[in-house]
Protein backbone atom coordinates (compact mmCIF):
# COMPACT_ATOMS: atom_id res chain seq x y z
CA UNK A 1 0.00 0.00 0.00
CA UNK A 2 0.99 3.63 -0.41
CA UNK A 3 0.79 5.93 2.59
CA UNK A 4 1.46 9.62 2.89
CA UNK A 5 3.53 10.72 5.89
CA UNK A 6 3.36 14.32 7.09
CA UNK A 7 6.70 15.93 7.93
CA UNK A 8 7.54 18.83 10.22
CA UNK A 9 10.40 21.03 11.34
CA UNK A 10 13.89 19.61 10.86
CA UNK A 11 12.59 16.50 9.09
CA UNK A 12 10.57 18.54 6.59
CA UNK A 13 13.65 20.64 5.90
CA UNK A 14 15.93 17.62 5.52
CA UNK A 15 13.61 15.82 3.11
CA UNK A 16 12.68 19.05 1.35
CA UNK A 17 8.94 18.39 1.59
CA UNK A 18 5.93 18.69 3.92
CA UNK A 19 4.99 15.10 3.20
CA UNK A 20 6.34 11.99 1.50
CA UNK A 21 4.57 9.00 -0.01
CA UNK A 22 5.90 5.58 0.97
CA UNK A 23 5.22 2.15 -0.53
CA UNK A 24 4.74 -0.25 2.35
CA UNK A 25 4.06 -3.94 2.76
CA UNK A 26 0.47 -4.75 3.72
CA UNK A 27 1.60 -5.72 7.25
CA UNK A 28 3.85 -2.66 7.78
CA UNK A 29 4.26 -1.20 11.27
CA UNK A 30 5.09 2.24 12.64
CA UNK A 31 8.69 1.09 13.04
CA UNK A 32 8.79 0.24 9.32
CA UNK A 33 7.64 3.76 8.49
CA UNK A 34 10.36 5.25 10.68
CA UNK A 35 12.99 2.99 9.12
CA UNK A 36 11.94 3.93 5.59
CA UNK A 37 12.10 7.62 6.42
CA UNK A 38 15.50 7.32 8.10
CA UNK A 39 16.78 5.69 4.94
CA UNK A 40 15.43 8.58 2.86
CA UNK A 41 17.14 11.08 5.16
CA UNK A 42 20.42 9.31 4.54
CA UNK A 43 23.16 10.48 6.83
CA UNK A 44 21.45 13.70 7.91
CA UNK A 45 21.83 14.48 11.63
CA UNK A 46 18.22 14.56 12.69
CA UNK A 47 16.49 14.20 16.05
CA UNK A 48 14.91 10.78 16.60
CA UNK A 49 11.21 11.16 15.88
CA UNK A 50 8.08 9.41 17.06
CA UNK A 51 5.23 8.43 14.79
CA UNK A 52 1.67 9.65 15.12
CA UNK A 53 -1.12 7.61 13.60
CA UNK A 54 -4.47 9.35 13.44
CA UNK A 55 -3.13 12.16 15.63
CA UNK A 56 -1.84 10.05 18.50
CA UNK A 57 1.72 8.87 19.17
CA UNK A 58 1.92 5.10 18.74
CA UNK A 59 4.43 2.39 19.67
CA UNK A 60 6.62 0.97 16.90
CA UNK A 61 4.65 -2.29 16.80
CA UNK A 62 1.45 -0.56 15.68
CA UNK A 63 0.18 -1.83 12.33
CA UNK A 64 -0.40 0.78 9.68
CA UNK A 65 -3.70 0.64 7.81
CA UNK A 66 -4.56 2.16 4.48
CA UNK A 67 -6.22 5.52 5.03
CA UNK A 68 -4.42 6.23 8.34
CA UNK A 69 -3.27 9.82 8.90
CA UNK A 70 0.44 9.35 9.54
CA UNK A 71 2.89 11.99 10.77
CA UNK A 72 6.53 12.02 11.78
CA UNK A 73 6.85 13.83 15.12
CA UNK A 74 10.30 15.23 15.97
CA UNK A 75 10.92 16.05 19.65
CA UNK A 76 8.41 18.80 20.34
CA UNK A 77 9.47 22.35 21.17
CA UNK A 78 6.42 24.52 21.56
CA UNK A 79 5.53 27.17 24.07
Amino acid at each position, binding site marked *: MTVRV*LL*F*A*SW*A*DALGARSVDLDLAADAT*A*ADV*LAALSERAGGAAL*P*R*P*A*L*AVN*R*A*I*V*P*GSTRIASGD*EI*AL*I*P*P*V*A*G*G
Partner: protein
Amino acid sequence: MRAAIVVRPIDCSALLAEVAATSNGATVLFTGSVRASSDGRAVSGIDYDAYEAMAREELTRIVREAVERFATSHVVAEHRTGALSLGEISVAIAVGHPHRGLAFEAARYVIEEIKLRLPVWKQELFTDGTRTWVDARLDTRTPVR
Protein backbone atom coordinates in the same frame (compact mmCIF):
# COMPACT_ATOMS: atom_id res chain seq x y z
CA MET B 1 -12.91 26.32 28.20
CA ARG B 2 -11.34 26.74 24.78
CA ALA B 3 -8.12 25.82 23.00
CA ALA B 4 -6.90 27.08 19.66
CA ILE B 5 -3.91 27.07 17.34
CA VAL B 6 -3.86 30.51 15.71
CA VAL B 7 -1.86 32.37 13.09
CA ARG B 8 -2.98 35.86 14.15
CA PRO B 9 -1.49 37.81 17.08
CA ILE B 10 -2.77 36.63 20.49
CA ASP B 11 -5.04 39.14 22.24
CA CYS B 12 -4.50 38.83 26.00
CA SER B 13 -7.36 41.16 26.85
CA ALA B 14 -9.74 38.92 24.93
CA LEU B 15 -8.48 35.85 26.82
CA LEU B 16 -8.89 37.61 30.17
CA ALA B 17 -12.42 38.66 29.23
CA GLU B 18 -13.20 35.10 28.22
CA VAL B 19 -12.38 33.65 31.66
CA ALA B 20 -13.96 36.52 33.62
CA ALA B 21 -16.86 35.54 35.88
CA THR B 22 -18.14 36.85 39.19
CA SER B 23 -17.68 33.34 40.61
CA ASN B 24 -13.92 33.88 40.25
CA GLY B 25 -11.82 35.69 42.80
CA ALA B 26 -8.55 35.06 40.99
CA THR B 27 -7.32 35.16 37.42
CA VAL B 28 -3.90 34.09 36.17
CA LEU B 29 -2.61 34.85 32.69
CA PHE B 30 0.59 33.29 31.41
CA THR B 31 2.22 34.33 28.16
CA GLY B 32 5.33 33.06 26.45
CA SER B 33 7.09 35.39 24.05
CA VAL B 34 10.09 35.55 21.75
CA ARG B 35 13.30 36.39 23.61
CA ALA B 36 16.14 38.39 22.14
CA SER B 37 18.72 35.80 23.15
CA SER B 38 18.99 32.04 23.28
CA ASP B 39 21.96 30.32 24.91
CA GLY B 40 23.85 33.57 24.58
CA ARG B 41 23.14 34.02 20.87
CA ALA B 42 21.26 37.06 19.51
CA VAL B 43 17.87 36.07 18.12
CA SER B 44 15.91 38.06 15.54
CA GLY B 45 12.73 35.96 15.55
CA ILE B 46 11.21 32.48 15.74
CA ASP B 47 9.32 30.49 13.14
CA TYR B 48 6.80 28.10 14.65
CA ASP B 49 5.80 24.99 12.75
CA ALA B 50 2.91 22.84 13.95
CA TYR B 51 1.01 19.68 13.12
CA GLU B 52 -2.05 21.79 13.37
CA ALA B 53 -4.80 19.19 13.43
CA MET B 54 -3.08 17.16 16.16
CA ALA B 55 -1.94 20.24 18.08
CA ARG B 56 -5.50 21.52 18.24
CA GLU B 57 -6.72 18.18 19.60
CA GLU B 58 -3.83 17.86 22.07
CA LEU B 59 -4.24 21.43 23.36
CA THR B 60 -7.95 20.77 23.82
CA ARG B 61 -7.09 17.63 25.82
CA ILE B 62 -4.62 19.56 28.00
CA VAL B 63 -7.15 22.32 28.70
CA ARG B 64 -9.82 19.73 29.50
CA GLU B 65 -7.43 18.02 31.93
CA ALA B 66 -6.83 21.36 33.67
CA VAL B 67 -10.58 21.99 33.88
CA GLU B 68 -11.08 18.62 35.54
CA ARG B 69 -8.04 18.61 37.84
CA PHE B 70 -8.43 22.16 39.08
CA ALA B 71 -12.22 22.36 39.11
CA THR B 72 -12.88 25.40 36.97
CA SER B 73 -14.40 25.69 33.52
CA HIS B 74 -12.61 29.01 32.94
CA VAL B 75 -9.46 27.89 31.15
CA VAL B 76 -8.46 29.08 27.68
CA ALA B 77 -5.22 28.53 25.79
CA GLU B 78 -3.93 29.68 22.43
CA HIS B 79 -0.69 28.79 20.66
CA ARG B 80 0.38 30.83 17.69
CA THR B 81 2.26 29.49 14.66
CA GLY B 82 4.17 31.09 11.81
CA ALA B 83 6.83 33.80 11.86
CA LEU B 84 7.06 35.74 15.14
CA SER B 85 9.17 38.80 15.86
CA LEU B 86 11.01 39.62 19.10
CA GLY B 87 8.61 40.16 21.97
CA GLU B 88 5.60 38.67 20.20
CA ILE B 89 3.48 36.22 22.17
CA SER B 90 3.67 32.60 21.04
CA VAL B 91 1.46 31.06 23.72
CA ALA B 92 -1.08 32.38 26.21
CA ILE B 93 -3.11 30.71 28.93
CA ALA B 94 -5.80 32.37 31.01
CA VAL B 95 -7.43 30.76 34.06
CA GLY B 96 -10.23 32.09 36.22
CA HIS B 97 -10.88 30.36 39.56
CA PRO B 98 -12.61 31.09 42.84
CA HIS B 99 -9.24 30.67 44.61
CA ARG B 100 -5.79 31.92 43.69
CA GLY B 101 -3.75 28.82 44.53
CA LEU B 102 -5.58 26.65 42.04
CA ALA B 103 -5.61 29.44 39.43
CA PHE B 104 -1.80 29.50 39.55
CA GLU B 105 -1.54 25.71 39.50
CA ALA B 106 -3.90 25.33 36.55
CA ALA B 107 -2.02 27.88 34.43
CA ARG B 108 1.26 26.23 35.30
CA TYR B 109 -0.09 22.79 34.46
CA VAL B 110 -1.23 23.89 31.01
CA ILE B 111 2.08 25.47 30.00
CA GLU B 112 4.13 22.52 31.29
CA GLU B 113 1.97 20.04 29.37
CA ILE B 114 2.16 22.20 26.25
CA LYS B 115 5.95 22.10 26.44
CA LEU B 116 5.90 18.32 26.84
CA ARG B 117 3.14 17.27 24.50
CA LEU B 118 2.09 19.81 21.87
CA PRO B 119 3.30 18.92 18.34
CA VAL B 120 4.78 22.35 17.73
CA TRP B 121 8.35 23.16 16.79
CA LYS B 122 10.34 26.33 16.84
CA GLN B 123 13.14 27.43 14.59
CA GLU B 124 15.27 30.20 16.02
CA LEU B 125 16.47 32.83 13.56
CA PHE B 126 19.72 34.41 14.67
CA THR B 127 20.91 37.91 13.87
CA ASP B 128 23.92 36.40 12.05
CA GLY B 129 21.52 34.95 9.47
CA THR B 130 21.65 31.33 10.63
CA ARG B 131 18.66 29.35 11.87
CA THR B 132 18.24 26.26 14.03
CA TRP B 133 15.36 23.98 14.93
CA VAL B 134 15.04 23.63 18.67
CA ASP B 135 14.77 20.02 19.68
CA ALA B 136 13.94 20.46 23.30
CA ARG B 137 13.45 16.83 24.15
CA LEU B 138 16.14 15.43 21.92
CA ASP B 139 17.96 13.71 24.73
CA THR B 140 15.01 12.58 26.77
CA ARG B 141 12.27 11.48 24.42
CA THR B 142 11.82 7.76 24.09
CA PRO B 143 11.87 7.04 20.39
CA VAL B 144 9.45 4.69 18.74
CA ARG B 145 11.13 1.28 18.25
